């Protein structure tokens, strides 16, 4: 049976070749700026995946070590604290204890490592929120909301399917704050009752 014998309503997936050939090179070059400029796969920047030795500009075999690595948390899959590292926001407070335990106890291959880091993130946030409440710049549940009134919020969302889950954002954002305030009120009430006997 030749391709001309295939009924017209049989799609490409069921026969030997695509039934509609792609446009010609000439047609594509006329329509698309630069079409085919990287046509040769062997001449693309990321081919081959491993390019040894890469010309990186490094004049060292192993970098000079940045000072201050003592006590810095690291993945236990590393042999040591890497010679260069970020020094932003060092571990502190209860969140720091949780994070340090996550790094010291669990490898990156263990879900507990990441879950503890997420817990550390939430504790870190509340440590800072509580501190902010006694400052001149208290935290709020969400920022940037002024743009809901200045950047066409209704127009921008009209007809979009993601509005369904965006409706959950206030719950996600406000939920922990409502729970926090509720818990604080109940705690204070219980304390007052205990004191009154």
């Amino acid at each position: 049976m030749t391709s001309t014998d295939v009924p017209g309503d049989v799609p490409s997936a069921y026969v030997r070749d695509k039934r509609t050939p792609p446009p010609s090179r000439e047609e594509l070059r006329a329509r698309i700026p630069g079409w085919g400029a990287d046509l040769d796969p062997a001449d693309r920047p990321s081919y081959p995946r491993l390019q040894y030795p890469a010309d990186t500009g490094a004049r060292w075999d192993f970098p000079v070590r940045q000072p201050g690595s003592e006590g810095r948390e690291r993945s236990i899959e590393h042999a040591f604290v890497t010679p260069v590292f970020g020094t932003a926001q060092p571990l502190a407070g209860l969140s720091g204890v949780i994070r340090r335990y996550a790094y010291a106890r669990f490898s990156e291959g263990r879900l507990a490592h990441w879950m503890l880091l997420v817990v550390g993130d939430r504790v870190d946030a509340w440590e800072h929120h509580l501190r902010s409440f006694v400052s001149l710049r208290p935290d709020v549940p969400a920022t940037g909301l002024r743009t809901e009134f200045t950047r066409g919020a209704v127009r921008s969302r009209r007809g979009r399917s993601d509005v369904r889950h965006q409706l959950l954002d206030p719950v996600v954002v406000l939920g922990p704050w409502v729970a926090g305030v509720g818990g604080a009120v109940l705690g204070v009430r219980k304390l007052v009752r205990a004191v009154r006997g």
Partner: protein
Amino acid sequence: MRAMVYRGPYKIRVEDKDVPAIEHPNDAIVRVTLAAICGSDLHLYHGLMPDTRIGHTFGHEFIGVVEKVGPSVEDLQVGDRVMVPFNVFCGSCWFCARGLYSNCHNVNPNATAVGGIYGYSHTTGGYDGGQSQYVRVPFADVGPTKIPDWMHDEDAVVLTDAAATGYFGAQLGEIAEGDTVVVLGAGPVGLIAAQSSWLMGAGRVIVVDHLQERLEKARTMAHAETLDYDEYDDVVVEMKKQTDYLGADVVIEAVGAEADGNFLQQVTGTKLKLQGGSPVALNWAIDGVRKGGTVSVVGAYGPIPNAVKFGDALNKGLTLRMNQTPVKRQWPRMFEHVRNGHLTPREVVTHRFPLEDIAEAYHVFSSKLDGCIKPLILPDAA
């Protein structure tokens, strides 16, 4: 100096911080002249990336002027205008020596599974980022490149990640002449991936999204056909119909961990955080590509597992290719393409915000208000 500061999920503000110091002999301090918010910054903003600490300054897309250099820096001088790849990398470890700059082993003590990235949590090394007036740039002789005189600043800043990632994503697709390429996501990465697919010989490029301004941009900027997934009950079926029931030869996943398109995945992944984000686009890629085809993943995912249809990838005999982009490896060729007008990175830019208004910029970008595709941040604007 003034800097963007993370205060918890959905909360950021601008604060005074100390100007960063030289901490290693090959460091430079760069005064940021232009920065951008990346779609992947929204994963941090929404609290999806483990070990994102309060006080962290985001920003891995920035250009600037060298303000100070460490004693071992030879290739940069104070006053040089530089563009900085989003990767922090040493240039000498086993991985860098083979061109895998995004997988550098010498810059991120917090994890071995990811290299160093500016302003992207402690999981990527704990470096404050460029959404600020100054930033510390390690390995100044390895990472930054002087901005060519002819290059527009907005092209340069988009080339530090989004454009390079789109171009890299098309390469990961191993596109052969005449291939049908589907690009999932018409954000900055997807738009450049679509443009790049043509350069590599695609015969057809189809971009999938649901935001009208982005689909329009895919048609005008990337000369692509478009599919609005909101118009279909099941966009995978439509992808099959559009490709004569074969599936696409190549699918480029340019969305990442907060994909829309499936309510359950969105709620469990990005709202309740019961998995590492919403892998809808990744599953559409696996479903929409043809058997024996290639899925290129350049959308950003974190270390927490996702509900991905791996069995279908196995049974279809797919090639899955992915990585964070080794940016500097892309630049020499990309510079030619930009100069020739074959790639047009700054066309993705839609909004420009002063640093002081960055909280508004994040909300606009996160909620996709006002047709926002790519917001830039101007550190010194009043």
